């Protein structure tokens, strides 16, 4: 009972179609997604990420203060932010695929993924697959891709959580790369000891975010290449690259 504090209100000014409006929302409880639910279904389904006071903001991250709100999607005039968010989310998903796809005796240790760069043509995840000589066939790549492609029907939300450094270290205790990275990530955070963690279903990973609202935005998802790299910090790793297309920008079926 003590956890439930008195609900405070924040004023959210929405800019953009269908019309500019002001809403009174609950502080630390309402999210941009709930604003979209109030306004209309189109905003709910097509918005990838929100812009709160000019900062990219997760669709499912609660408001903390009075703010101006804008919803972004892939067909904006300047879709740079949604594109980056999409690319980052796809890297995140690639991590989850790698964890899920392999047989139980193979313990995949995820390392990290660099900043999203759409112009490179692919999103990336670096991981230690414990399979130094593995050259995947096209059928095997298809199997990996299919896991990603199926996610669009599951419509899983990406949820953000800021955890304490100690909790984070506990969470990723079986991953030697993450344990190495966590102190530096925590140092960059405003409080100095919190780590931003995202959850998609039962997959949890550290990323700065923001990520897109849910996996329903994916139309095509394919894992294209697996290559070897030498990382100066973490040694020999596999770099997995992939490609995805959002649902809002349909491409040819064939």
């Amino acid at each position: 009972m003590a956890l439930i504090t008195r609900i405070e209100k924040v004023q959210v000014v929405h800019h953009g179609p269908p019309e500019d409006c002001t809403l009174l929302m609950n502080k630390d409880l309402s999210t941009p997604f709930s604003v979209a639910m109030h306004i209309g279904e189109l905003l709910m389904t097509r918005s990838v990420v929100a812009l709160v006071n000019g900062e990219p903001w997760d669709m499912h991250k609660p408001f903390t203060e009075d703010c101006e709100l804008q919803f972004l999607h892939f067909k904006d005039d300047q879709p740079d932010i949604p594109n980056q968010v999409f690319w980052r989310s796809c890297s995140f998903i690639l991590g989850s695929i790698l964890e899920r796809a392999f047989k139980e005796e193979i313990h995949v240790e995820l390392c990290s993924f660099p900043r999203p760069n759409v112009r490179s043509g692919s999103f990336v995840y670096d991981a230690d697959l414990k399979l130094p000589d593995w050259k995947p066939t096209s059928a095997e790549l298809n199997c990996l891709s299919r896991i990603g492609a199926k996610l669009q029907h599951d419509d899983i939300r990406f949820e953000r959580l800021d955890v304490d450094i100690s909790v984070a270290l506990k969470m990723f205790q079986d991953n030697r790369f993450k344990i190495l990275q966590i102190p530096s990530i925590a140092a960059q955070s405003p409080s100095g000891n919190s780590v931003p963690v995202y959850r998609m279903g039962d997959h949890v990973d550290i990323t700065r975010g923001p990520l897109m609202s849910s996996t329903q935005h994916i139309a095509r998802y394919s894992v294209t290449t697996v290559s070897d790299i030498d990382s100066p910090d973490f040694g020999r790793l596999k770099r997995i690259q992939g490609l995805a297309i959002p649902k809002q920008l349909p491409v040819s079926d064939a």
Partner: protein
Amino acid sequence: MLRIPIKVTARKLPHAGGRGSGPQGRINKMRKLVTALIRHERIEGQYQWVDEARGYAERLILEAQRNGDTHKGTMEMADYWLLEKDLVHKLFKVLVPRYTNYPASFTQLWSLGETFPGRPVPMAVLELKGNPWPPVVPKERDQRNSLVNILLDQARKDYRQQKYESIAALELNKQSEQQTSNIDDSSASTS
């Protein structure tokens, strides 16, 4: 040749000039629409009437452009089709210069959908291109930064580079082959 889609048969429009007005009424209606179009440069009306009138307006401008104002038949046509006679001057002195070396159609047709409430009647807007009115549709979205286009841009650059490299390599090969053959020939001739 007209640069607009033409139905292979004309619409009959028997009630265009009032119920039972027949083909003469149809032509009269077309004359009114063409005159209004040249006068106001943008008109709104039933889709089938406006679309039908579009052909006449296009052909009239095309003929005026092709034959000039000294051609007797064209002047007769302009006199017939333009009910307000000051428009004849506008046709030859304003519109013809406007559309010289114009590669596309002279008019633009926008479908407005059907009227509601009431009996659904498809409506349309017909306008002369280059008119002084504000545009019917707002400016188009800039598509260059969409995700698909960014990906394809990059792919295109890479592909072109690869292609030109392979072509250059081929030509180099050819040249070297030619040189060797030349050398062979010269050696053969010297021997």
